[in-house]
């Protein structure tokens, strides 16, 4: 039996968490990680896997596919999202992503997530909790790499 949710208390508690950040992780990206991602997703362009070919393109080196930004999510999300009593199921509903720089082999990427907010929405199956958080990716030289806003729904 699902427990009743005290929405006012829940939303107040989550509003107090806005701005909270996860401890940063540092990942050194190498060619094999990019190749494994390209192979697993069926990304067919040689700019992801063929070093000699990629050098001759406008990128000048191998790059990671755009959705590679998702590989930094782990350790930050869904952990940053609150799992509420009475709303045990949580699904990913939206991503809003800005890519400032392609990720290349040799990049050391710092990643952390920042809690962005929570709201209630009433759906056909009852009230649902929407939460959002931003994953921020920065390169070792301080360059902004990407911002990934992820929205989840609990019901």
């Amino acid at each position, binding site marked *: 039996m699902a427990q009743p949710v005290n929405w006012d208390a829940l939303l107040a508690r989550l509003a107090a968490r806005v701005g909270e950040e996860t401890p940063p992780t540092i990942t050194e990206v190498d060619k094999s*990680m990019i190749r*494994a*991602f390209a*192979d*697993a*997703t*069926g*990304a*067919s*362009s040689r*700019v992801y896997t063929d070093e000699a070919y990629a050098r001759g*393109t*406008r*990128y000048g080196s191998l*790059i990671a*596919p*755009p*959705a590679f930004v*998702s*590989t930094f*999510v*782990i350790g930050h999300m*869904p952990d940053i999202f609150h799992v509420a009593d009475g709303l*045990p*199921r949580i*699904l*990913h*509903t*939206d*991503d*809003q*992503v*800005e*890519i400032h720089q*392609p990720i290349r082999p040799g990049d050391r990427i710092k990643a952390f997530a920042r809690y962005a907010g929570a709201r209630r929405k009433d759906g056909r199956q009852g009230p649902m909790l929407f939460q959002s958080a931003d994953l921020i990716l920065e390169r070792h030289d301080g360059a902004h790499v990407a911002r990934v806003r992820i929205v989840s729904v609990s019901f």
Partner: protein
Amino acid sequence: MKPTPKTGDALPVYEREVTPEQLVRYAGASNDFSRQHWDHVFMVENGFPGVIIHGWFTFTIMCEAVGRWLPPEEAAISSFTVRYHRTHAPGLVRCGGEVVSVDAAKDGEVAVSVWAEDGAGNKTTSATIFLNRYVR
């Protein structure tokens, strides 16, 4: 080089069969080992018919549909928004889309509306993907 895309141009439909084994491969490559994508019993206990494709995995297939039409050598994806409308079970992923704008003020930035549907024709995922034709 590909001719400059125009608003209303359609992307060729791209289809792929996704197997449960590919979900495990994707989990490894993306570090996303959420049980929704490999633990059938867990999903049934939580009211789903079975495991589901990672939302980001579906999105990578939508990116491949775009890349086969306008390859990364010619245009870089600079931003995107993705909405997951419903879960997508392993099986067919069918993607298509169209150009929704070409912004001359932004060096010809192309916005493409892309969708993915499952084998039953349910639209599971939609995205707007912005591409810069000139890499800075």
